[in-house]
């Protein structure tokens, strides 16, 4: 290691402290030799060349897309799923910053980081899928404003920018940039409002995309209200991702977590209650879609069985798991419910965009191994990026040196459930209502940052 970077690696240097986490070069490299990293390297060793192959040999050489199946795994999984699983970001930042549920503050940053990475991956997946990705800038010049995809494109651009700014907050703390941090703090409220606005529009717009293909999507999944389904299920997915993430990062980043996170179990129970309510509402919305289209008879076909697997097995059942777990303080049930919900929402997006699309055609699309490899690579890159950042920046706990500037939390909010009833008009409000109810049941004194 005693080569050009020697000065960079000397003890106490910025690079060593910030990038190598205080280790010298050799011990840092040694610390990288973990089973996890070996798996990562193996996946990237396959996936990165495939991505290069996609851009040098074309879509035909890498995908099984066809003239009747223009959208495959890269849209159905990378784009649809990447975006919906990022919904935890706007859900929790609205709950904390707008609805004043300060006790959830410790999970805002990981949620926003996840959302930011999720969006970047979705955008990257999209660029891989586009035939002429360099022309994506044309959406700024030539506005096809009658297109649902135009709305998606704009909202993704806008919200990715908002997420970047929200993510910069911990990044500035990491860099020690006080001025920039202060400025950003002042705009957090506005950014949070924007994040809800853009997320509402484009989580639902992803569903609107399919409104124009009534004959191609199976009637059990096609509904004039599909955009509402997409929005409500995004909230369910967001809440569930918060639980899953919380459980995982608690285990993986134990060393990064300080006392502030002692209440994590409680928070997860609160999220469980929210998840139960949102999922229950979503289940009945889906039933209403069937009723509205008078498709009851279709439930008794093979596709109907598959539909029931989705909405009973992966919506109703996790709803009950959530409810039971939250009520009886059983964290295991809540976590199981969260994992099932995440799987269920991913299944829903795949059903809409791939599985039940072209349902009445022979020779249904099955992704090629290279399409799967690219998707897997992107997910892996996301996990690696999260780890890299969470290990260095104040994501899982806020930097105490900056804490003074932040809001005084630690307030017990008595009987606030009633206020939130007023806001229940919108889908986003479902979550705070539920989580607040949880607070009423379990009077938790103090919060993450009580002193």
């Amino acid at each position, binding site marked *: 290691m005693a080569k050009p970077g020697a000065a960079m690696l000397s003890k106490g240097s910025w690079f060593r402290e910030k990038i190598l986490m205080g280790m010298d070069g050799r011990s840092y490299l040694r610390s990288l030799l973990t089973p996890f990293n070996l798996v990562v390297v193996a996946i990237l060793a396959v996936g990165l060349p495939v991505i290069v192959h996609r851009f040098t040999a*074309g*879509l035909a050489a890498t*995908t099984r*897309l*066809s*003239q009747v199946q*223009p*959208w495959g795994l890269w849209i159905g999984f990378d784009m649809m799923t990447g975006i919906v699983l990022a919904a935890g970001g706007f859900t929790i930042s609205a709950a904390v910053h*707008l*609805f*004043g549920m300060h006790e959830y503050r410790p999970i805002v940053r990981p949620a926003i980081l996840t959302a930011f990475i999720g969006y970047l991956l979705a955008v990257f997946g999209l660029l891989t*899928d*586009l*035939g*002429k990705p360099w*022309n*994506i800038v*044309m*959406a700024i*010049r*030539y*506005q*096809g*404003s*009658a*297109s*649902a*995809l135009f709305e998606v*494109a*704009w909202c993704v651009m806008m919200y990715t920018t908002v997420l970047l700014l929200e993510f910069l907050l911990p990044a500035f703390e990491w860099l020690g940039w006080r001025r920039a941090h202060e400025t950003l*703090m*002042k705009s*957090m*409220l506005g950014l*949070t*409002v924007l994040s*809800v*606005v853009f997320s509402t529009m484009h989580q*639902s717009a992803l569903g*609107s*995309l399919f*409104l*124009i*293909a*009534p004959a*191609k999507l199976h009637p059990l999944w096609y509904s*004039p209200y599909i*955009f509402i389904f997409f929005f409500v299920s995004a909230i369910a997915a967001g809440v569930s991702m918060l639980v899953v993430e919380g459980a995982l990062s608690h285990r993986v980043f134990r060393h990064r977590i300080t006392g502030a996170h002692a209440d994590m179990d409680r928070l997860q129970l609160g999220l469980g209650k929210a998840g139960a309510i949102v999922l229950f509402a979503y289940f009945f919305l889906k039933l209403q879609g069937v009723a509205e289209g008078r498709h009851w008879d279709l439930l008794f076909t093979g596709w109907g069985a598959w539909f029931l697997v989705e909405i009973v097995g992966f919506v109703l059942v996790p709803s009950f798991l959530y409810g039971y777990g939250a009520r009886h303080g059983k964290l295991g049930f809540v976590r199981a419910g969260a994992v099932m919900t995440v799987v269920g929402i991913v299944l829903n997006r795949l059903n809409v965009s791939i599985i039940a699309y072209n349902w009445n055609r022979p020779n249904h699309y099955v992704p090629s191994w290279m399409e799967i490899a690219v998707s897997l690579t992107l997910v892996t890159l996301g996990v690696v990026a999260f780890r890299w950042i969470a290990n260095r920046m104040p994501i899982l706990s806020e930097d105490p040196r900056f804490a*003074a500037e932040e*809001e*005084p939390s630690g*307030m017990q*909010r*008595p009987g606030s459930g009633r*206020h939130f009833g*007023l*806001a229940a*008009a*919108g889908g986003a*409000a479902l979550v705070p209502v539920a989580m607040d109810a949880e607070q009423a049941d379990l009077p938790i004194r103090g919060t993450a940052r009580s002193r």
Partner: protein
Amino acid sequence: MKLSRRSFLRAAGVTGSAALGTASLARAGSADARGENESAMLVDTTLCAGCRGCEAACAEANALAPPSPELDVRKTRRDTGPEAFTVVNGFAGGGAHGEDRFAKRQCMHCIAPACASACPVRALDKQPGGPVIYRGERCMGCRYCMVACPFEIPKYQYDRLAPLVRKCTFCAQRQAEGKKPACAEVCPTGALMFGKRGSLLELAKGRVYRNPEKYAHRVYGEHEAGGTDWLYISDVPFETLAMPSVRDEPYPDKVQGALGAPPFVMTLWPPLLMGVYAFSKRRDEVARAAAGHTPGGGGGAGGGAPGSKDGKAGGRHA
């Protein structure tokens, strides 16, 4: 809906007024909602001899690979493709009296095209005169047009590194020069008749009404997908000729409701959310006072630091 969508864009500051001026959508600004003055084509399948001269002329006019000269290709069902904007499929014994019947397929040039409404960059665009044209230089290759088209006409060059969407252009260029589309130009039997949609529709109905025992009582394309500029009449059901069954309503309308939502979201969400925020902040203040803190001290060690995210609350506490 259209109007509110535009004002949404304006409000969002997304676009300049110049761009809006030209943003004539599928049917916007057209008094000709039924496309009567659009150029159109009537295909009388009873007159088609299946010579495939139209295929060859199309290939020549659009610089496509020349189609196979073998007439046998008519025996297998073919689809249009990136190198074949039109195909003539044969249906042996498909006629009312056991004759062979042929059906030419190509873009239907909808009055309200789903593809053009779906295109986020308006690379696919409906010209006021009728043709649905494609501007490859702005296409990003999202292939949403292929999802949208109920006739499954747009085809993609998956094997290219800078692929394009390919489909019949109704010879928009030739039309602009005052010429007929290449296929109609060469049709030797009169099976393809080029004209204005209004008069061709009358002509088609006239033929059907005057020969009720011969023709199926229907003009394919009159109502399909809200009406198309290509119209078909036949002596056998159109299903026999493998013409896709497509809903009658204009496809872009299906999305309009959902696309009407953003203006409301953008105008209603922020004040609603700010209202909720005001509630929660007030509640915190009350709780803080009740807990015996002096309001200004609630900010903790920060001293002059703002007590709340918006940076104003601190001042109010003091």
